[in-house]
């Protein structure tokens, strides 16, 4: 079960997108030398919706600057687990959590919730741009957090849109409504909006389930680029997607984390029979 057993899958150089400026190879080389460090650490996490227990004793670690995917059938608790990581579950009445989650060693349940969500950003299943202009969507986070002065906001919006690989498509219509964008563009806008508050972790809750294959491919490319600056956790229904983008994969079933390991291990040589059955399509 140790994630260090198998080599960490590296993105092939040709998968990097045009316009990407950071020297990817050198970063990845240095990462190989450095041991992976845990960013988020869940210990014995139980979650309840009223009297229904949705998560049973989840313990796992999310590693810094890596992509971690959660797979599993509908209702297995993967999205619920994701939502505990930035305490988004708190919007649901009668939900309750037990156990511990640490972000860089700090208990997230003791952090101020808005401070936590600035550090752990989230992108949702369906694109949910605000009914505002593209510019105002991106500027929303920095503005409410007061993190960037009015003078710097323009550059910051551009930088965030560039990070989400959307700048070239929208630079001439920044003040048009975000609703005029296509579904895939809207989702990248939502990613840019989340990136604009410079999160340390980005949670993606089935970000491609409402998108066509081309838009999906763009988001996946984006995930590769982003993991240099961000730790990424993605919930997906699409197993090929997990295999393509994730360094680590966790398989959830009936509210339990059945198996968590390096993605290659999960897909090529899973330790548990349930995982193998799910991967090979025998159920789910």
């Amino acid at each position: 079960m140790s994630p260090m057993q198998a080599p960490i899958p590296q993105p092939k150089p040709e998968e990097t997108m045009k316009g990407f400026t950071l020297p990817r190879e050198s970063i990845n080389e240095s990462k190989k030398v450095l041991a992976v460090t845990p960013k988020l650490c869940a210990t014995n996490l139980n979650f309840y919706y009223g009297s229904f227990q949705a998560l049973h004793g989840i313990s796992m670690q999310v590693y810094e600057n890596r992509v971690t995917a959660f797979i599993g059938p509908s209702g297995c608790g993967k999205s619920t687990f994701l939502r505990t990581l930035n305490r988004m579950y708190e919007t649901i009445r009668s939900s309750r959590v037990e156990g511990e989650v640490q972000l860089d060693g700090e208990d997230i349940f003791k952090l101020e919730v808005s401070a936590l969500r600035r550090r752990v950003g989230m992108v949702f299943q369906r694109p949910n741009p605000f009914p505002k202009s593209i510019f105002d969507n991106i500027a929303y986070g920095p503005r409410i957090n007061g993190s960037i002065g009015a003078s710097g906001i323009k550059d910051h919006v551009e930088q965030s849109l560039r990070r989400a690989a959307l700048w070239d498509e929208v630079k001439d219509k920044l003040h048009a409504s975000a609703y005029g964008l296509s579904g895939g563009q809207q989702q990248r806008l939502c990613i840019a909006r989340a990136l604009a508050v410079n999160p340390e972790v980005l949670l993606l809750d089935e970000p491609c389930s409402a998108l066509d294959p081309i838009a999906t491919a763009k988001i996946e490319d984006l995930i590769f680029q982003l993991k240099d600056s961000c730790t990424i956790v993605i919930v997906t229904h699409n197993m090929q997607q997990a295999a393509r983008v994730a360094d680590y994969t966790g398989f959830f079933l009936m509210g339990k984390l059945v198996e968590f390991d390096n993605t290659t291990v999960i897909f090529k040589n899973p330790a548990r029979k349930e995982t193998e059955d799910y991967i090979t399509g025998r159920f789910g």
Partner: protein
Amino acid sequence: MLSFRRKAMNAVMLSLTGVCTLVAVGVLLFILGYLFIHGGISLTWDFFTQLPKPVGEPGGGMANALLGSAKLLMIAMLIGVPIGFLGGVYLAEFGGSSFSFVVRYTTDLLNGVPSIVIGIFAYTLLVLPQKHFSTLSGGLALGVMMIPIAIRSSEDFLRAVPLSLREGSMALGASKARSILTVVIPAAKSGLITGIMLNLARVAGETAPLLFTSFSNRFWSPGWEQPTAALPVMIYTYAISPYADWHQQAWSAGFVLLMLVLAINITARAILSKGGHVAR
């Protein structure tokens, strides 16, 4: 044979529903046409600029009633809109289930209270202690009438804002209050404004609550503390008078009132259809 019966039934029911629809539309068209013939044609500029003339003198207008109605509606808005809007925000965003149920139930009851009873309420609250009729008390009565609909329409339009938008802003570190202020209310803005305008159009025609609150006035109202003329009350007074030229004035006033209400309604719907692209 069976198919013939079915087709015949279809034809009968279709024409029945069609006729009923025509009747419903016809009533409005009839009222519009009738008011136009009796009131619209004889409407002159004097109606908007002159004070009422004494009995027997021809001419005169209802300028004081127009201004009076505007003042009353302004007070009504100042009372009804903040209470209704903030109450709606509470119900839509913060209300616990059992308390919200009670609030919704009582606002529905308040909505069903006959307008004359609301008039008595304002009468008891302001007119009796002050011992004179006033514009303020009339505005209060209309304002109280606005509250239940303002609450429910604000609640409905705020609820129509998708949960995903609230989540989106809260996931960026916005507090609940912040996300309501900066995302939810702006997203519901056109609906909220429409609700207020339709509400205003509804109370603009109320007569009963004004009869013993703002009373009436043959002249310009000297101030907020004094009685004022209002369009609906003028229609009432002029229509039950025994003078033919007053009847004529009442028709004109009715026409003007209806046109005002229609104008507010149409504007409100135009605002809604323009800004209605949020709901998904």
